[in-house]
C-alpha cells in the first residue's frame, strides 16, 4: 500500500469514526437531555399535585359551597331574562339609565364530531348580557355594581370597560354580566364526580 493510499484510508477511517461516533454520541446526548427535560416536567407536575393535595380540603369545601348555592334555571333564556331583570331593576333603583343591552352567545370551540369540546364546556352553564351606559355618575355606577355582585347570586362581571365622559365626574361604561347556573332539566355531570 502506497503512502498516499494509507493517508487517504486514514482520513476516511477518521471521517467514518467522527460521523458515526459523533452522530451516536449526539443522539445519546439528545436522548439524555430529553429524559432530563421530561423529569423536570414531571417534578413540576408532582409539586403542583402535592400542593393541590395539601390544599384539597379547602378546595373541596369551596366546591361544596358552589354545589350547594349554585342557582338552577330550566333554560338559558330563563337565566338571561332573570339576569336582565335583576340588572335593570337595580339600575332603576340607583337612578341609572341603561343605554344598551345585548345578549352575548358564548362561542364554543367545536371538536371533530361537531360538538363543543369537553374542556370548553366548563362546570357551569352561563348566560351573558352586555350593558352600555353613557355619562353616568361614578358613585352611582359603583353602587350599582356593588348591589348586583353578591356571591350567593352567582352573578359576575366578566368584562368591564370605563372611559371618563369628561363632564362632572361621569363616565361611559360597558359591562358584561354573566349568570352562572345549572340547568334543572338536564343536570350537568361534574368532572369531579
Amino acid at each position, binding site marked *: 500500500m502506497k503512502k498516499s493510499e494509507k493517508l487517504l484510508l486514514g482520513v476516511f477511517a477518521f471521517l467514518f469514526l467522527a460521523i458515526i461516533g459523533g452522530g451516536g454520541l449526539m443522539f445519546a446526548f439528545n436522548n439524555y437531555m430529553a429524559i432530563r427535560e421530561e423529569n423536570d416536567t414531571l417534578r413540576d407536575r*408532582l409539586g403542583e399535585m402535592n400542593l393541590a393535595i395539601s390544599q*384539597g380540603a379547602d378546595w*373541596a369545601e369551596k*366546591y361544596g359551597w*358552589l354545589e350547594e348555592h349554585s342557582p338552577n334555571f330550566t333554560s338559558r333564556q330563563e337565566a338571561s331574562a332573570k339576569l336582565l331583570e335583576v340588572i335593570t331593576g337595580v339600575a332603576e333603583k340607583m337612578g341609572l339609565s341603561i343605554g344598551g343591552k345585548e345578549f352575548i352567545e358564548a362561542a364554543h370551540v367545536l371538536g371533530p364530531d361537531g360538538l363543543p369540546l369537553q374542556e370548553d364546556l366548563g362546570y*357551569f352553564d352561563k348566560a351573558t348580557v352586555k350593558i352600555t351606559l353613557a355619562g353616568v355618575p361614578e358613585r352611582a355606577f359603583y353602587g350599582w355594581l356593588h348591589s348586583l355582585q353578591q356571591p350567593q347570586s352567582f352573578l359576575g362581571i366578566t368584562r*368591564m370597560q370605563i372611559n371618563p365622559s369628561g363632564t362632572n365626574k361621569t363616565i361611559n361604561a360597558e359591562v358584561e354580566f354573566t349568570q352562572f347556573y345549572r340547568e334543572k332539566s338536564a343536570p350537568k355531570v361534574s368532572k*369531579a364526580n
Partner: protein
Amino acid sequence: MAKTRKPSCELLLPGAQVWQSWTGAEGAACLLQAEQNATGGKFGKEAARRVLALPAVHFWALPAWLKGQPEHLRSMGLLHLERMGIKAEDFEASVQVRNMQGKEGAYLTRILALKDLPTPLTDTARLPDEVTLHALCYPLVQNSLTIFRELGRLVVAITSGSQLIYCSPLSANRLDGNALAELNNICLQLGFQGVLGRLESIVLWIEEGDVQQIQRVTGLSAYRCDMPAPTMPERGSSLLMPQDVISERQSQTRRSKTRFLALVAGTVIAAAIALVATLTSLALQERNLLRDKVASLTPRASRVMDHKKAWHEAAPAVDPTSWPQQILLHCMEPESSKEASITHWEWTPERMNLRGRMPSASLALEYTQAL
C-alpha cells in the same frame, strides 16, 4: 542466597565467522553470551544499553594530517573525504573526526565515516543505542598492524601509538602472498601521506599465515596470539548511527506516538460512552420513579384540580378578591396613581388594559412597576 546481577550492557559484534553477542560492564572486558548467524545479529531483551559494533566494511577509517585551527578539523576532514571521492553527509551520526596528535599547527586525525550500507540487524524491534567500529572494541597493540577476521573477511587495523588510525578489510581472502602485497601497498600509501608512524610489529589474531614469510616480506616482526575479549565501549564514546537505524527509530517513535494517541482517543471515547450511559441510566431510573409517583397521586390530585377549576370558573361571581372593583382599587393604591389621569380602563378575568396620562415618563414607569 545472593543473586548475581546480570550485566546491563550488550555488545553485538561480527565474530570471525558469525555475529556474536557479548555482555559486560562499561569499560570492562565482555563475556561471550551467544553466537548468532552470519547474515545479521539481534539484541537480547534484557540489556539496558545496546552497542552495535559494525564490521570494517561498513566504515571508512582513514588517517589524515590536517592543517588549520582545531575547531575546523571536522570541516577539513569532510573536505579530505570529498577529495578522496568519498561522499559523506555532514552529520555527527555519519562522520566522526578525532584529533590524535598535533605538531606545528598540523593535526593527525582519524576520520571515521559510515558507508551507506544496510545495518545487519535481523530484528529491528530492539535498536542499538550506540554504533561503533568493531576494531575499536579491542585493546590493540601499540604501533602495530593487527590482522583478524570479521565474518570470514580478513581485516587489517593499524595503530599509531595506542590509537587506531586505519582499519580496512583486505581484498584477499587468505593471508598469502597477495594479502601481504596488499598490506605492503597500504603501508606504502599511508607512508606517502606521512600518517604512518613507526610500525613495530604485526599481530596475527588468526591461525593462518606463515610468520616467517610475513617477516620476510614486510620486514616487521610478526607474532600470533589469541584474539582478546572485546571491551565494552564507554557511554558516549561514539555518536555514529546509520541512517536506516535513525529512520527505523523515528518510525518506531511515530508508531508509538500513534498507538498512544489511539489509546488516548479510545479511552476518551469509552469514558464518554460510559458517562452518557451512566447518566442516561440514572435519568431513566429517576423518570420511572417520578412517573410512578405521578400515577399514584393522579386520582387524588385530579379531584382537587377539578374543584379548583370549578372555583376559578365561577370566581368572577363568587370570589370578591377577583372582582373588577377590587382590581380598580388596586390600580389606585400606588402613590404615583395620584398623578395619573386614566382615559381608558378595560378589564377581563384574564387581562387588564389601562391607558392614561402622566406628567413624566419616569412617573409612568414607576406606576407601571408598582402595578
